[in-house]
């Protein structure tokens, strides 16, 4: 007859795993790696914005008010999305993991519910505005750019849009699953 005390004793007597040698040093190294990755991400984001601004000057967009406004629209929505993501990651990091489980759970739930709202409302608006800006810019791209570059821009934009939509869809599905499980 198995009692709970037997289970407890089985649990306590299970084979103990060795503590990894220098395990604590590996943890500290890992944290430094994470910090480096964060810096790289920030550099990539800044470079993307710089490329967009550079492109703005390259095609002398400032000569046309429409082109200027449309490019500004594209840069702004991209920036807004980046800022939202940045704030969101920061908020997740700031959720106190040392709090008791009930508090932690409700904080995590609130966080993911907000994320879902962002995904369902703000992200589609951003994608729509970005695509709109791009489509309206196509005539001036055709005038200012070589045919090869123009074709390249159209194809790369379509591919980027498809990849972006698929990626966001996957992310939403994953986060919905987390919310459901909490």
């Amino acid at each position, binding site marked *: 007859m198995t009692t709970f005390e037997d289970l407890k004793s089985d649990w*306590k007597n299970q084979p103990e795993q060795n503590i*990894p040698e220098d395990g604590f040093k590996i943890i500290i190294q890992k944290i430094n790696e994470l910090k480096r990755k964060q810096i790289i991400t920030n550099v990539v984001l800044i470079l993307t914005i710089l490329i967009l601004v550079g492109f703005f000057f390259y095609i002398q967009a400032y000569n046309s008010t429409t082109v200027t406004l449309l490019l500004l629209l594209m840069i702004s929505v991209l920036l807004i999305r980046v800022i939202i993501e940045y704030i969101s990651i920061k908020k997740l990091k700031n959720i106190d993991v040392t709090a008791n*489980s009930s508090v932690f759970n409700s904080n995590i739930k609130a966080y993911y519910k907000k994320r879902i709202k962002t995904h369902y409302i703000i992200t589609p608006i951003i994608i729509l505005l970005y695509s709109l800006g791009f489509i309206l810019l196509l005539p001036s791209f055709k005038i200012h750019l070589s045919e090869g570059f123009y074709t390249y821009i159209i194809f790369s934009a379509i591919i980027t849009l498809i990849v972006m939509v698929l990626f966001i869809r996957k992310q939403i599905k994953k986060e919905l699953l*987390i919310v459901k*499980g909490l």
Partner: protein
Amino acid sequence: MKALESQFKSVYEVNYPKVLRLCLGYTNGDLIRSKDLTQEVFIKVWQNLKSFRNQSSISTWIYRITVNTCLIELRKKRTVKLTSSVINVEESNDNFSEEKEEKLKQLYKCIGCLKTESQSIILLELEGLPQKEIADIMGLSHEVIRVRIHRIKNELTKCVKK
């Protein structure tokens, strides 16, 4: 910095087996996944060590981080295969009798069938923590914990007997 590092080293070495055992309970005994989770837990321990204020014991504090980390990380990757746990238990200790091994596998399986909150409560109970401490980690009243432990104990014992 050096003082904090040496504090972290001793915290790591004292608590590593406990944290790993708890993670094994959440992952159906999957050793590789549990080691990853344990590493994740200690990353958070290091990141928060400066803010630890002796309001509770360090082990209670670490258990809180472990429970929270395991819950959220396992939500991200929900599926845990039992087959991997079978291999891990077998590899870990040659002297560990076959009968005990079977019992442990069954125990992991039954824990895996519980709701996540019940899993946390019973794993802490199996670790031998006082109910008051479990209540503190879970953020529930002592009375609620007492009733739940009684219920989960019965559920778990019935499941293991099957």
